């Protein structure tokens, strides 16, 4: 009985503790994640990877560190997700504690939440299958590591060329920040390849052409399955629901040791005081947790040229003006998004008009075009898919009608002969009528004249 009361009390306290969280949590208006569950193999990872974690905490994230086999692990309670993001730094966890498993992680992603997964040599099947579901297949050989004999990091103590100085970074400001990462990124871990059928997953950091994935201590008996630039070291996935996943083949990539280490790439005499790791992981972390590259589109409006209200329907050949506002989330506020490649489609089964929108540098995109001379139910479609940005997909339906019968041009010159004919006939009839009824006797008696009239009119 006492236990029960105690349990209730704990329940109440945790519920109360949850309340302030809910105000800070992820929402369409405030898309940055707030609460992140960090799963660790070991508590000491918390201190050995503290720079990465501190960077997150200093940006306002609420990190909840748990051991991967903690029996109380749960991502959701009463159907509500307790966290907005998940960091899995538990490469060897064969299974998670509590109610967390592969399906729960995938559901978490399916409901639009973000995940960082780091694997390492001897990564467990669980981690491998999480990555495989995201389109990244780790090398099946458990002892294999990425080895590169031409672009390794020179070091006096590390001689087996598994510490790789990688500089094949994806070129994207939204993923890696505006500042270019100059120093190579140190990587020590396992290789993965991207599933060619998954077109949402991208290599962020890829190996050089001479790299291969093998056990450095064993002689090779068959060609390694992953070689060259097909090897991905770090990949990202942005799902269709804009959930973001980061998959790294190395846990050490995030560690204080490599973040602080100096780096000199083999065959290159430039020595960098500090590796590019810190900038790389922190910038990528910002992207994953939606501090960057999150777009929203509002105020999709269209109207006839010269008018301001939105019509219920357009007529063919109308001139219309279309505008939409696009903003990017900066982590704290919505900033105008400036790009010159936003396009609108005027769409019915296939695009009839596809036009690039011009912007006013304040987030307002607009264009004007003529409605095609095809009637039917059209859609304004803005399908904006850019590397690293969330997908914008807007559509607004609008019918287009043909001319009404009285909207065509009247009094066409070509028809003048017909008009002339009709009216001359009418007038003639009227005159005739007038003449016929009021003719003088003199005229009436003139049979000749009567015949003439008859000849003309009957």
């Amino acid at each position, binding site marked *: 009985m006492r236990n029960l009361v105690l349990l209730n009390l704990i329940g109440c306290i945790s519920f109360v503790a949850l309340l302030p969280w809910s105000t800070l949590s992820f929402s369409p208006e405030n898309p940055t994640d707030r609460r992140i569950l960090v799963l660790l*193999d*070991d508590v000491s990872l*918390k201190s*050995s990877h*503290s720079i990465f974690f*501190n960077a997150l905490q200093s940006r306002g994230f609420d990190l909840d560190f748990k*051991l991967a086999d903690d029996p109380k692990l749960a991502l959701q309670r009463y159907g509500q997700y307790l966290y907005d993001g998940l960091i899995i730094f538990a490469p*060897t966890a064969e299974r998670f504690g509590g109610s967390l498993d592969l399906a729960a992680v995938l559901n978490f992603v399916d409901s639009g939440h973000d995940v960082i997964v780091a694997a390492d*040599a*001897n990564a467990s099947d669980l981690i491998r299958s999480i990555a495989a579901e995201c389109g990244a297949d780790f090398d099946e050989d458990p002892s294999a590591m990425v*080895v590169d*004999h*031409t672009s390794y990091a020179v070091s*006096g*103590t*590390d*001689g*087996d*060329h*598994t510490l790789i100085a990688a500089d094949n970074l994806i070129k994207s400001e939204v993923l890696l920040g505006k500042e270019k990462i100059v120093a190579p990124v140190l990587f020590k871990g396992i290789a993965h390849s991207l599933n*060619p059928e998954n*077109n949402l997953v991208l290599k962020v950091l890829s190996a050089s*052409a*001479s790299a*291969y994935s093998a056990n450095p*201590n*064993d*002689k*090779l*008996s068959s*060609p*390694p399955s992953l070689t*060259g630039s097909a090897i991905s070291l770090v990949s990202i996935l942005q799902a269709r629901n804009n959930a973001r996943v980061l998959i790294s083949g190395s846990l050490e990539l995030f560690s204080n*040791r490599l973040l*602080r280490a100096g780096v000199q790439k083999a065959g290159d005499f430039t020595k960098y005081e500090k590796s590019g790791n810190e900038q790389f992981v922190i910038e990528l972390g910002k992207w994953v947790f939606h501090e960057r590259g999150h777009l929203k589109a509002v105020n999709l409006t269209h109207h006839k040229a010269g008018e301001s209200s939105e019509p219920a329907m357009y007529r063919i050949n109308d001139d219309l003006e279309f505008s939409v506002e696009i903003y990017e989330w900066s982590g704290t506020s919505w900033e105008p998004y400036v790009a010159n*490649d936003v396009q609108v489609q005027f769409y019915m089964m296939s*695009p*009839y*008009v*596809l036009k690039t929108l011009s912007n006013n540098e304040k987030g307002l995109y607009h264009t004007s075009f*003529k409605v095609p001379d095809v009637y039917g139910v059209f859609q304004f479609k803005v399908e904006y898919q850019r590397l690293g940005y969330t997908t914008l997909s807007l559509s607004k339906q609008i019918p287009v009608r043909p001319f009404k019968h009285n909207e065509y041009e*009247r009094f*066409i*010159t070509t028809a003048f*002969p*017909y008009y*002339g004919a009709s009216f*001359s*006939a*009418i007038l003639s009839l*009227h005159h005739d009528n007038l*003449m016929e*009824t*009021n*003719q*003088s006797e*003199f*005229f009436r008696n003139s049979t000749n*004249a009567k015949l003439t*009239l008859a000849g003309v009119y009957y």
Partner: protein
Amino acid sequence: MARNLGFLVLALFVASICEAAVFTPISDSHRSAALELFAATDGSLQSLEETYEALRTFEVLGIDKKSEIKTSTCKTVDDTLWSASSAPKDLFQALRVNGILKCDLNDEAFTGIASRLKDSVRDASTLLDFYYSISSLMLIKGQTSEVDVKLEDADGVFRAIKALSQSDGRWRFSTNNPESSTYAAGLALETLAGVISLASQEIDQSLIESVKKDVLKLFDATEKYDDGSCYFVDAQGSEGPISASSAVIRGITSLASSTSESLNLSGDKIMCLAKFFLGIGIPGSFKDLYYQVDALACLDKNGVSVPLILSLPASVLSVTQKDQLKVRVNTVLGSPAPPLSVKLMQIFTSGSKDASIIDQELKFDPATGLHVLETLPESIDIGSYTFSFEILLRDPEHKKTYATGGRTKLPVYVTGVVDVDQAEIIILDSDLGSAETKKKINVNGENSFALSANHLQKLRLTFQLTTPSGNAFKPHQAFLRLKHESGVEHLFLVGNSGKKFEIILDFLGLVEKFFYLSGRYDIQLTVGDSVMENSFFQPLGHVELDLPEAPEKAARPPPPPVDPISKYGPKAEITHIFRSPEKRPPMELSFTFLGLVLLPFLGFLIGLLVLRVNLKNFPSAALPAVFAIAFHLGIGAVLSLYFVFWLKDPFPPCLHIGKVEILLMNPSIKSSAIWRTGPVVSLYTRSDVIIPMEPSTSKPSTGRKRQREQEVSSPENHTAGDNLIFSDTSVALQMMRSQFPRIDKVSIQPFILRSQLYSSIKDRTQVDRELENLKREMVIRIFKLSTGQDDHAIMFLDDYHSQIERAVKRLNAKKQDDLVVFEWFKTHVLPSKPDPSIGHQELHSLLSVAGKVKEEHISLIINAGLLTRQLIDPNMYWFAIPNIGSILKGLTQGRKELLSFLNRRKYKEMMLSLLEKKRLRFSLLDMRFHLRDLIGSGGMIGYGEFVAIIYKGNGGIWMVVNAKHSQ
């Protein structure tokens, strides 16, 4: 957790080869990390405890930060020490800080505190109380010699603390708390060490012995890693392994120093703890860093045994640069070791078990403090090795105080430049083995061979690898890659026999693998190894392969990988191509023709002039002249109306005569007009509409008939007066009501079928909508009929009321009292329930608003025919028109009769005028009623104006009614 921690350290030392782990003493990286962590706190330390931890860390690491915080911290220390309310814990922290900062404090303060602390030792019950008080006394002892800190009853205190120990060597925090912890053990040992040194007389030796045993037991519970390091785990889990191990180390080192006796701990145990602390690298939190540094500092100068760490400044030795093997031996904090010599005992070649025994002493270089092996042994070629070292202490005394950890195995990579010779690429003819083309490869330069081969030929690539010492070298990576222009890659391992590497690609056997893809293949050769300094990745050129056509069943090459980035980016713009406007003749041509067309008219006018046309016959008398003018003006007006109509569009509403005229003509036209397609009645005028009310058959009537006509007209007048704007439906309703056949046998008010409305108004949705409005406005009522699924009768509400009255009159004979229920029904149920059905409950409650309702009342209503029971749900009633039964029977039979009649005709069709003259035998209703009903319900179709056709198709019977205007 132990398991997990194991994995962590494994992960951290993945680089290390299993049997050899690398541990390096504390170095500058720790110092910079400590400063960075300190900077992260903005220099503002929250409590004295944190201040102490920071100061202690900096002190050990040799960083001077004291001056920065001395003034502010000393003030806090002073306040704490002088405050009478300070708990032993606060005093302890303050004294600890003071121990490092050496603040200006007088002995007076210490004296007061010491007595208070002694009291608290006496009263202490929990381990933490003991710990804080005794440690504080120890600190006072260390900071001033003036104050007496001796404990009188040291034995008693010792026993009290000892009472908290457990059999497994761990301690409890208090007697109430049954759970023991390693962290507590560390604190307890430190406290006991304090008691021993504070004791005024010797402590009982047996007590100390038992504590020693506890320590040994405690060490049995260490967790071990594969690499030879070990640590303590706190059973309760409140403290991490770092803090627990650190506490134990502090405890045993202070115990060892206070007892000045051997603890019988082997050096290996200490060594493995040292390895643990060195192995965790640089912790990310200040607390952990403090624990690590503090523990290492305790180990660095302890009375048990000081671990010596052997490390290699560089484990990658380049043969070409003649690197020497250097070994450094330090204590854990990196301070120099006592005089000793290092011996290289064994060298293991990685990947093989065999070891060469060397037993060579390294030369000590006093300038750098390194032990150097000047030349590597002869047998050492490039490769990766594990060197095994042993530390020999010169002074035998030192063997007791230092732990060397036995043999230390460290991985060493000996690298060098490998010679690549006789690299050739040859195309061979298959059958003869004779060389077709032979190219020498320049390994260090650019190669771009353009070879060509067909499937009957072979490609052979050979090269030789020689180490600097002239031995054969087998690299880890020797790949030949063929890459087709479509992106398909093939990777081959180049095998070796001795020095010579050779690969022969027999294209005949490879066509399947190459997916029969002919064309250009780029050749790339990759040779690399971790000990090969000149690993290379070289494109060699390309080979043009001519392979046979693929047979049908051959495997398809994999689709070329699609660059996922390509799907991003803007699409090509699309602009709509508009239809070109219709071609028109030039304007001049149109005007020319206009002129030509007008010529006859001109001719006519001229003709009139020629004929000397006059208007002399125009009537001159007043009346005829007026009529003549009116006549001509009339015609002129009609013609000008045409002109205006042509000129103006949309036509002004005032002139919108519409088709209402048609309705106003005589009745036979009216009837046919209703059948015509299109909105028959469209009233946009505001003029009064006269709805014909005279049934076609009306004759000078009897009194009764006259009365009925008045009844009929009453709702009409009412509606027309209220609403000047009519909807099509209401007009149609009014009209049909007026055309309702006169039935003599049954007294029934006119009703209209919904299908009849459909027959006369094209837009059924509009009909339904307007009916719904009329229903809501209480103008009409809709009844469900039992004749068919979709049969609905519509009756004006006033008609319905009079129908009810008639039904009530017929019930007159029965109980008068109950008749009041009909009034209730009219006033309460009908207005609030426009739907065709009503539930029993609802009916009951609506009726009871007016008065007390009995079940008989409801049965009375049912008997009167106002309600009928639903067959499906007995609690639901349909509203019904009383007295309608015989008419409904006639309706169904009449439909059948009409359809079968037409069905018997040769062409399933009939002149409407003839059909209208026919009489139906079984129906009381007239032919027009039925025709409208059937057309509206889809049984027939009206078409044209002349004949009525029944057409039997797949779907049923259709009738095409063409009404002819005979007039």
